[in-house]
């Protein structure tokens, strides 16, 4: 299974976009005075997810997508989601 395969890439991209939409909804509903840390963490999640999406689509044009970098992004997302729960 290679991330550069179009079908796989489409599925992964759809998963990332779904996550971004869910996080965006959560961002919209956060109290901006009391939940500043949570807002910051969720915004960071959006940024990591967006950069993963860009990586998935831009690297293929001149280099192979490396699974390691992508897995690091997933690990970051997992850590950030944990952090978001902790700072609530």
């Amino acid at each position, binding site marked *: 299974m290679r991330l550069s395969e179009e079908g796989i890439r489409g599925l992964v991209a759809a998963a990332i976009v779904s996550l971004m939409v869910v996080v965006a909804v959560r961002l919209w509903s956060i109290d901006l005075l009391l939940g*500043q840390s949570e807002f910051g*963490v969720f915004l960071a999640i959006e940024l990591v997810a967006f950069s993963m999406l860009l990586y998935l689509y831009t690297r293929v044009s001149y280099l192979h997508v490396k699974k390691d970098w992508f897995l690091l992004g997933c690990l970051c997302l997992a850590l950030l989601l944990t952090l978001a729960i902790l700072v609530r």
Partner: protein
Amino acid sequence: MDIKFRRIIDWFDSRFGMTETILRPGPDYSINLFYWLGALMVVAFIVQGVTGLLMLLYYVPTVEQAYSSTLFIIKYVPLGRLIETIHLYSAYAMVLLAFAHLMRGYFASVQKKPRELMWIVGMLMGFVVLGFGLTGYLLPWTVISKSATDVTIGMLGFLPSELANVLRFLIAGPGSDAAELSRFFDLHVVVLPAIFTILLAAKMYMFEIHGASEPSTGVKKKVRSIPWFPNIFLYFTMLSCVFLFILLVGSVLFPLALPAQFTPSAASAFVPQPEWYFLWIYQILKFSAFEGAWAVLPLVGITAFFLVLLLLPFIDKSKKRNPAHRPVYVTLGLVFVFEVIVLGVWGYFTPGQVIPNTQALVIMVGIPLVISILSWITYRTRRTFQPAGSRSGSIFRFVSTPFKAPLLTGLFVLLLTSCSIPLAFAVNLMASPWSNIPLLVSSVLITALLLYLMSRIVKKLAAEHPVMGARHEA
């Protein structure tokens, strides 16, 4: 490229003509983080601008309200604490990135023809970044920021009085606290951003003419050209997102805590300490040798050092760019980096203490000595290991070779450890060289003997294991 993705790109391109922009395509070697440190600094500058503008909605630059309005932003404004913290950390990031960009440029010798002016403009931008730090630090009017700023302005007193008076008036106004705050606010919000933007435009213009500098180790025969849009644009967007993510996480984990408000009584009980990026300079000024009338010496020295760095393209005329062929140049750069780090950390842990001459000498002489010896060993070994006629490689590639030769690595460590003992003796004795000349001479001689032995053993081993040459010939 994916057809759907291509269609989205084409849609934007047909509306904005982005493939026809003035920005030139980049070579494939520029798809590397080290080529984007300056650009990330500009991202940090934009973050500074946006967060700064948001804070301006509430901040009042008067002595009476500067602190209370900052506290109000942190406590009562939605996202206020986060924005304040991001503003602070993006300022730190700007300084760090500017330093990293400078050192990367130095080691890769990017200042050579035809990029001399780009180097000078970049250095000026670095000074403006430090100016941002200095002027912004005062604005919350805390006991730490005001005391540290007073120390910095007080340093002008070591200059000739006419020059000091003019500079003091330009930076801090006619003398009152209100004028000082107002002047710093104007510099921070209007003057410095305007200068930075003009310099940035000049640098971008020159960059578009000359393009990214080639790697100092040379380029492969066929360099692919990568279009600015969408590839480089999206790559840079990705890097910026990662940078902003780090900034955000740092701001969430370590939010800003505002120190106490400045009052003369609070300041008298407080030891002033500048921001971390000025600590190395401050530490040098605390050496007991530079007390009183001698304090002008380090200021002149540091000014001269920055002048040399600014005019480096006209001083360093050598056409060689590869660090592997520039031992003196690389060693001087490493000494500077290590001195800045060690003096900065040392300064952080010794606030307000006068540093005895012996300790100062150990750091100011010991670090250059140790780095010079290590550098000499590395370059000599590298030359020994590379048979005549073989192509030279990057010094960084060479550094990884000891891991392929564990015997050599072990021997290095053993000899270096043995060397450090007489070397430490020699450095310590240099504080009072006339007191024990025989011990000093014997320490130096033993160090030299160990170095000679090291070079002989390495040479013998090199004959059996031509690591670099074999790699390149293959």
